[in-house]
């Protein structure tokens, strides 16, 4: 029996260690582990941040969520959140509620909502890249649109 444990362990270690790029432990690394609560991000330099802040406030008011990120692009806004585990059964319902609430409060804007870990991870990476000034205006917008498309293709 013991030999099976060794085999199974070996297989996963082999798998997980085989692709360990030399990233230093960045925020994105742990973003799935802990609540990072990134500050609101705006891809356009001149847009005001406060507008995005109160969107984030409204969304965080939902008790079921514990980590919210809002990214405002040129045309639309991406709202990404993580759901507390026990509420994950009702993720579809939560998504509808947030959508309804945002449509009422900010009728003019069009929102993309997602509870996906991957989208959240990409948002945090985008945030880091913008801070470290690698991404500016045009590239940030492209990356933002890429992320938004990612949410579309999986529905």
């Amino acid at each position, binding site marked *: 029996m013991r030999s*099976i444990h060794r085999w*199974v362990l070996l297989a996963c270690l082999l798998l997980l260690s085989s692709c360990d790029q030399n990233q230093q432990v960045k925020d994105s690394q742990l973003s*799935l582990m802990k609540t990072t609560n990134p500050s609101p991000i705006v891809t356009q330099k001149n847009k005001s941040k406060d507008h995005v802040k109160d969107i984030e406030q409204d969304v965080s008011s939902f008790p079921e969520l514990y980590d919210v990120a809002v990214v405002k692009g040129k045309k639309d806004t991406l709202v990404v959140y993580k759901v507390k585990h026990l509420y994950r059964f009702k993720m579809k319902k939560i998504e509808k509620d947030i959508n309804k609430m945002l449509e009422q409060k900010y009728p003019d804007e069009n929102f993309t909502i997602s509870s*996906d*870990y*991957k*989208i959240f991870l*990409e948002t945090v990476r985008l945030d880091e890249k913008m801070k470290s000034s690698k991404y500016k205006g045009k590239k940030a917008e492209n990356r933002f649109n890429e992320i938004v498309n990612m*949410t579309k293709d*999986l529905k």
Partner: protein
Amino acid sequence: MATSKQKNMTPQQRNYQQLQQKHEIKRPVLKNCIKAFFVGGIICVIGQAISYFYIYYFDFTEQSVGNPTVATMVFLSMLLTGFGVYDRLGQFAGAGSAVPVTGFGNAVISAAIEHRTEGFVLGVGGNMFKLAGSVILFGVFSAFVVALIKTLLVIWGVL
């Protein structure tokens, strides 16, 4: 099915079966269930780890990460089957190793490895889905029936 057989059995057969029932070693159901629970759980945790691995390093979203995870699990089950470990794991865990997709992979791969001696076309080709074929057949047919009913309900506006 069993009851219909019970009826046309001679009394001699029936009382023999009662006698035989007494001596039959009962399957350790509880022990098997606990083992199945643990091994099944561990395999799903490994699957979860692989899913997160794909989410981190490849652009799969949480919904679409299922496909690469399943492919990797089948690859793992090929390794375990090829090295002759999976049949011992199966004897220990029972459904714990058969229900996850590694069990499905093991069914296909063990049949393929087994019938290689009969040649690739007739042996491997002919026998590969000897065990797993029924899973695909009933999966597809039941999905067809379910989807058909749902679509009809949607068309008739019920749903």
